[in-house]
């Protein structure tokens, strides 16, 4: 049983949860995830570890309320417990002195890109962070991101903050200044795919952290199969970070939807209760 220290909604439908998990806090690196299980009958869901404090023994994750499990998770509060928090799983993000790096986050990626930007900055890179959202009220962790970025660019669909537009604006950003040595994108698969399309003509190495279904997260079940550079990879042990220009995005999108009808069904029945 893992104790919840804080669990709150920070913007509509997006929550942060901080739990006491000293072993994970002591070993996690930027880009790794944990698997959570809310209760004994619960499913296992992977969430990126977006911040941690090794001294206090805490890890923080950000989740979007989309299905039954995340809805259930959102009802829990300080001192409640989770049945499982296991990790850190997956490979850490490759952190090196690349030069100029653009870190892009959307949705939960506003948060999960933060430790990556932080590690890159500590390594001496020039970091430009870009966050993207529907409207200014959907953005969060801006102050945190500013502290680890040389520049923070905000894009909103409705223009309520920063540039008006969407990830397609990346093209003009790339064309304007010196092109970055690397682009890293975290967020929904659509955002990552679109970002990859924008960086391809510039031939900029682009790394994405893929969202797949997972069960054990340790390389045993194989539900997280993705096709990268025409070969099958397991996101949990080979990834989750891959070269965006080699990912089969259509397949990924279809595999994500495998249980869509079941997810809707459980959500309906859990809301009816």
């Amino acid at each position, binding site marked *: 049983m893992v104790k919840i220290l804080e669990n709150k909604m920070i913007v509509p439908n997006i929550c942060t949860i901080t739990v006491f998990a000293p*072993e*994970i806090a002591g*070993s996690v690196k930027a880009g790794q995830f944990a698997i959570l*299980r809310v209760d004994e*009958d*619960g*499913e*296992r869901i992977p969430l990126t570890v977006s911040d941690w404090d090794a001294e206090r023994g805490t890890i923080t994750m950000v989740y979007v309320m989309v299905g*039954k*499990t995340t809805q259930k998770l959102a009802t829990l509060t300080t001192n409640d417990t989770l*049945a*499982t*928090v*296991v*990790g*850190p*799983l997956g490979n850490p993000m490759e952190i090196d002195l690349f030069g100029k790096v653009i870190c892009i986050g959307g949705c939960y990626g506003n948060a999960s890109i933060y430790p990556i930007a932080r590690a890159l900055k500590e390594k001496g890179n020039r970091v430009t962070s870009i966050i993207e959202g529907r409207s200014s009220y959907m953005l969060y962790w801006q102050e945190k991101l500013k502290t680890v970025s040389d520049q923070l660019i905000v894009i909103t669909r409705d223009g309520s903050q920063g540039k008006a537009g969407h990830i397609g604006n990346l093209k003009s950003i790339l064309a304007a200044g010196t092109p970055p040595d690397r682009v890293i994108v975290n967020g929904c698969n659509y955002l990552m795919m679109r970002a990859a399309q924008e960086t391809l003509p510039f031939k900029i190495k682009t790394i994405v952290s893929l969202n797949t279904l997972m*069960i*054990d997260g*340790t*390389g*045993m*079940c*194989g*539900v997280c*199969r993705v*096709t990268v550079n025409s070969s*099958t990879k*397991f996101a949990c*042990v080979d990834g989750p970070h891959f070269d965006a220009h080699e990912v089969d995005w259509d*397949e990924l999108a*279809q*595999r994500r*939807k*495998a*249980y869509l009808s*079941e*997810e809707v*069904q*459980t959500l309906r*029945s859990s809301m009816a209760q």
Partner: protein
Amino acid sequence: MSEEPKPKPKIDLNRREMPKQEEHVRSHNFLEVALGYTAELAMAEARRCLQCKKPFCIADCPVQIKIPEFIQAIADGDFAAGVRILKERNSLPSVCGRVCPQEEQCEKHCALTKRGGTIAVGRLERFLGDWEAAQPEMALPELSSPTGKKVAIIGGGPAGLTAAADLIKAGHQVVIYEALHKMGGVLYYGIPEFRLPKAIVDREVDYLRRLGVEMHTDFVVGKTRSMDSILEEFDAVFVATGAGLPWFMEMSGNNFNGVYSANEYLTRINLMKGYAYPKNDTPIKRHRKVAVLGGGNVAMDCARTALRLGAEATIVYRRSRTELPARLEEIENAEEEGVKFHYLTLPVRTIGDDRFNVTALECLKMELGEPDASGRRSPVPIPGSEFILPFDSVIHAIGNSPNPLIPQTTPGLTIGRKGNIVIDSETGKTSKERVWAGGDIATGAATVISAMGAARKAASSIHEFLMS
């Protein structure tokens, strides 16, 4: 006093059948298929044992159970004594009595086998394990006095549990680290409820806990903590991390929705209790026509599980029935329940629709050619014999490579060509100091009992090392 001459035993070839659930009933539920002997049946079966002076049954048992002795105890009606004898060598009798391939081991060379009346060693073992569990108090064996040494065991499956039992009895402090949220490894996530009820796994695990074994679930050595950090705290480490990356047949279409590895399919059902969805949260699709590729025990488990979820289940196998590697008992159970078999059929392509769902399997007809290295006649494709079988799900049950997490994250371990940890087969020692390994992580996919046998050897080598 003169001894009375012993009467020559009358040979009874009537191997007592174990009651089973009716096939048309059991194919619709997840309850255990075989119901176990009653005390009367067990005693009748045990009395048939000839009590050979030189028993062949023990020689073929990977953990060297004193088989004639525990059978005699059953014949005498002294079940408690039988349990004591059994547990000297095997800490998981209820499990092994169910899932060991006895026909390849203890029962193979039984003196009565040639005459068609092999003693049902497995059923008797199971009887004792279950009898003990039904008693109000489970007797705990005496432990040796504490040695002050600490052993870490990585992986809570059959190998890990066996080593834990041996080492704690020898007086060492034992801590098991398990990556999943339940102890038991493949006994929990792999073998279905109808063949090995999870309550039995929990019971055997609880027995070890009462012996003093400390257990940490949700702990991934190599990730949560490195092996080297574990080695700082412990005197020895036994790696028993079991199965890893599942294999898929080399063909196109493996990533369509509806295609599963046996590991995923069984884990969804067994560990995550997907059969109780939507009461439990982990979903499982209710497919209509399921193909299972492979012919081993795991393939039978998948097909019989699919059947219980309401599907028509078909085993697609490239050789013929005689070459099926599964236990005969499992094949017969599958056949009785209504699993279909497509023999001499080689899948070459999975076909899907524009929504990425499986719709069919393209196959080739095969014929049997010359015997190969394994002695089995090897299948040869018949050119131009392509045909299409409609399915909405395809499960690959053709095996897996050893779990990659420890090999990937631990410097100093020699890793074999198949991703296995290389060990000395007599001692289980790895190339890294104070580290032993055994079970599927060292050999690749094999049986529960062979993993337990390897664990027992490693435990004895670890004990020797710790006491020297």
